[in-house]
């Protein structure tokens, strides 16, 4: 039986403080998750001691994943810990929005290709 490989990412340690506010920091976390996903790891994002989280950070770190992985894969390989109710509400909107963004983006690019290449 395959033992599940797991890894916990300590957000506070990686961003060097209690404020998860920048897109650049979100990108760093995204790259860590991406690497771990490619190795089929189950990743937990631990937000302990992070007291300010904004959508810009969550878009880069988690929302972006939906452009590269199917929802089902993300659901089976990603967990979050130590998020407040308010932050969970924002994260759920980020996820909902990300799913729509990549559907719209595909539609937008398809129609642009159609306009340019006529196919």
């Amino acid at each position: 039986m395959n033992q599940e490989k797991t890894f916990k990412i300590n957000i506070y340690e990686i961003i060097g403080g209690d404020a998860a506010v920048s897109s650049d920091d979100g990108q760093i976390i995204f790259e860590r998750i991406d690497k771990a996903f490619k190795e089929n790891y189950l990743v937990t994002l631990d937000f302990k001691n992070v007291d300010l989280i904004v959508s810009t950070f969550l878009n880069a770190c988690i929302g972006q994943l939906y452009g590269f992985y199917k929802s089902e894969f993300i659901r089976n390989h990603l967990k979050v810990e130590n998020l407040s109710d308010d932050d969970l509400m924002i994260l759920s909107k980020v996820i909902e929005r990300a799913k729509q963004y990549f559907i719209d983006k595909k539609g937008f690019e398809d129609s642009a290709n159609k306009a340019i290449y006529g196919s």
Partner: protein
Amino acid sequence: MKIIVPQKLMSDQAGFSFIVQMFRQTKELSFDELILDFKNNIWLEANLCAALGAILSRLQEDFVSVRFENLNYDVNKILSKNHFLSNFGSESLPDTYQTTIKFRKFKVTEEKAFKDYLDLELLSQPDLPSMSPLLKSKINKSIFEIFNNANIHGHCKHVFSCGQYFPQKKRLLFTIADWGSTIKFNVNGYLKKSFSGAEAINWAVEEGNTTKTGTIPGGLGLSLIRDFLKLNNGGIQIVSANGYWEERKGVIFATDFENSLIGTIVNLDININDHSSYVLSSEINADSIF
């Protein structure tokens, strides 16, 4: 050049119209002098220093000396306490009652310094009415969404911020200004439309609408702020290009000014006497969120 500051400069349509007009009047100045004459002015909402400062800072880059004349005692005091005048050669004063949130200029990459500024100036002031931790967090997040928008969408170098408490009204006004790409420019470029300034802002504030095209999604920040301010009984105003847009208690008003501004000003009007619990309509389970 001399510009006469109106009798009352407030965070309303007339106040922002004056600021946009001031931008237009001064935008060609170079190696010159600008005098802001306050002889008629008796009231100035100090949060607007963010917008004034954005204009004056750009002028100083173009070697324009800025001088303030005929400031009345009260206005002079408040603009000294919030360190606005010290950017233009005057002394700064201590803020005994701590009603000002200092005027500051940040590089858009200074998120951590901006966080420290908010912690110090906005959330740790002992003389403020007590705010719940959730309200403080909501205020902090809203301001940061605006700060990040200036970076992501404005493509600018600096962000200017300033705030003012009005203890009797129990309101906090906080303004962020930049002189980056306007919302009108970004939206029309993205949609290949020719929206007016107000129409472009109207499009940009809708949840899900974004001019972002890369791998990182967007289109959420402003709608989160609007949701918060509706529950908070607050308001938001956005000025960009010639567009003026505001929302108060869920009612939207938008119009186009005669003049145009290169950049964006966002003003948040927050009710700090707010004991809402912001209860979620349904509890979100972290285990099934994805």
